């Protein structure tokens, strides 16, 4: 099986190139296994990976033009020859390793933490199962970046538009009945860019390896803004 991989090492290369490798497939092989096999043949090849089971979010790559998490992508789902590139729109550090600084900055910018102003109870803050269900489909985000780096609005306005991953987390806290910073959160999302650059292209939904729906979350934030008279 042939895999064509994007290669660029700033120490030695003037410009990036594609390099082909021959990899022997096996039953149940994931794209990460194939990349590890390449690494065995050529230790200069660099990519991030860790848990191997789709929970740490390290090994997001672009395979055959679509962002995915390598460790949970069976090679049988990819047509050959498989072409693997780094996430689009991010500065490349080396090979498949991209600079995610801006992605994390947007995440931090939405204040992704529970804010509670009331005095805390001695035991847990109560929350009904129905209210807790509102966090399903939100809290599971692994910050892999597949969504934001597949989003044309994020490509065009990476400094100003928060992108689907950060906005999903913005909604995760707005949706949490324990959180007491709704007004501040909505205030912070006002303006033409941070939230409103989402044009519901829905690439984020298509690529999310956890099956989450940032577009829906963004829509719900907009609804809440209307409801609150923003």
């Amino acid at each position, binding site marked *: 099986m042939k895999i064509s991989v994007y290669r660029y090492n700033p120490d030695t290369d003037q410009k990036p190139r594609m390099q082909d490798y021959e990899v022997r497939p096996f039953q149940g092989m994931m794209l990460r296994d194939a990349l590890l096999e390449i690494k065995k043949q050529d230790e200069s090849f660099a990519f991030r990976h860790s848990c191997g089971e789709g929970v740490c979010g390290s090994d997001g790559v672009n395979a055959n033009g679509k962002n995915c998490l390598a460790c949970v992508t069976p090679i049988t789902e990819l047509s050959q020859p498989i072409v693997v590139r780094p996430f689009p729109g991010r500065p490349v550090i080396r090979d498949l390793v991209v600079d995610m600084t801006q992605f994390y900055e947007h995440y931090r910018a939405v204040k992704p933490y529970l804010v509670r102003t009331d005095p805390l109870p001695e035991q847990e803050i109560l929350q009904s199962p129905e209210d807790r269900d509102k966090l399903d489909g939100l809290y599971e985000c692994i*910050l892999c970046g597949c969504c934001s780096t597949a989003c044309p609005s994020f490509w065009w306005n990476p400094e100003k538009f928060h992108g689907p991953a950060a906005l999903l987390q913005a909604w995760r806290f707005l949706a949490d009945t324990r959180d007491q910073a709704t007004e501040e959160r909505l205030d912070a999302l006002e303006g033409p860019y941070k939230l409103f650059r989402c044009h519901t292209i829905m690439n984020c939904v298509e690529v999310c390896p956890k099956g989450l729906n940032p577009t829906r979350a963004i829509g719900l934030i907009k609804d809440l803004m209307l409801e609150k008279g923003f």
Partner: protein
Amino acid sequence: MSIPSRHFDALIIGAGGAGLNAALQLASADVRVAVVSKVFPTRSHTVAAQGGVNAALANVLPDNWHWHMFDTVKGSDYLGDQDAIEFMCREAIPTVYELEHAGVPFSRLDNGKIYQRAFGGQSQDFGGDQAARTCAAADRTGHAILHTLYQQNIRARTHFFDEFFALDLVRDKDGVISGALVLEIETGEPLLIEAKATLLATGGCGQVFRTTSNAHINTGDGCAMALRAGIPLMDMEFYQFHPTGIAGKGMLITEGVRGEGGFLVNKDGERFMERYAPRAKDLASRDVVSRSIVTEVKEGRGAGENGDYILLKLDHLGAEVIDKRLPGIRESSRIFAGADPIREPIPVFPTAHYAMGGIPTDRFGRVVVPVGSGSEQVVAGLYAAGECACASVHGANRLGGNSLLDILVFGRLAGKDIIDFVRENPYQRSVDPASLDEAMSRLTRWDQKGGGVPAHQLRADFRKCMEDHAGVFRTEEVMAEGYQRLCELRDQFKDARLTDHSKVFNTARIEALELQNLIDVGLSIAVSALHRKESRGAHSRPDYPNRDDVHWMKHSLYYREADRMDYKPVRTKPLTVESFPPKERVY
């Protein structure tokens, strides 16, 4: 050569649950804290913990911390220190509430309280009926906790050094630990981080085995750094094999599956755990269940074409329970085992999972070593917490749900103690250049060119050898042969070479640095195991099938220099309650 340096009050190495909970205490107290992590914090392996965290909240069934303490002592096969265990079980309750207040999206009961499920080795009333003590966020509890802790650290403005690899601890002229030399992975440049206190929170070392539930990053870095600093590792022979890894692959299937009512069957469809643990059955302690599975397979009752695994059945729970309580398991099983547990059982086999042992600490996270005739003296300014540490609350076998608890309780306490320490010791000690040179040589050694053993080959050979010789069942013969082979591989390390000498994001170099850590930690497991001539908890020796409290109710201490062993007594006296004397351990 001049190496740039940064100064902080406290340095934390590792950004999993222990490191982040410590960092949160420090940053919230306005202590200048740096967290160094070789991966972005939410990629740390705490993220993969599934089932939950134990605390006697009594939300579902009657419970109290004293029963939790009894179960933990019994689970440890009486090797855990009872003062530390009492402390952890008492602290569990406020710790879980604090986490909930911080935002962890725990699953809920109808009355709005935190959902708790049954887990292995849990009982009410000191060995009575099954308890339900494990607080859960579906089957993604570790993910929920790690992300929440990172989020709260964002709020507290903790200073992170993301994707920096810790090379070694450094000392001053008097030998006092005064920070660490780290490597910025992106640039390939070294950086000296000087600090008044250093906390090792580097997590597990499951990568010493070939088949493991642990991530690629779990290479025992902190344990190996401690060893190289002359500090012994404690109870390393006690390595937990989780009963239910996906067969042949090793990914974890949480004990929560059995807690929710799933059970194991052999090829004949028999619920074989009834034979091994008549009372607790599938919710016996992990060491017991793992041995039972391996025995079933060895005796020819394994399922599958090669009869080399066991089946975990949960389809009878129904789609609704599975999707509500075990959604991540369903996803993993479909992806990696090709089996949808709503319809068919999951093929499972024990997988290397958790180090009960580690860097010896007291219950404040302070590293303690024997000095002279005393068995415990604090190493000034050095702390350890989480899986890399040994407090010792797990003894010879850890209970499910107690590892998230361990990292949170002792991470928090270490943070608190460091606050006091840096206030009492406000002056930074200057690093001894010789110590820095030594740490630097660990890096520059990989600049050597020429033929030699490829580092990745050595890594694979070492892990295979550990798996073959230090697994679930261990005999003198198998272990002695393994030790010899491991020593050969350790010798070969001197000739290991890289072909890639570039600087920017050189992952081959990082893996080579990790290889040295794997070798140091792997040897500590193999040597400690070879010396302990009894069966206790996870250390199971067919040639010494019984627990021997007369000779072996003591902690092992392994020193890297000359593979030397030492021992120290178990602390059997709790803080406020009566001691639990050793009893025969049945489930």
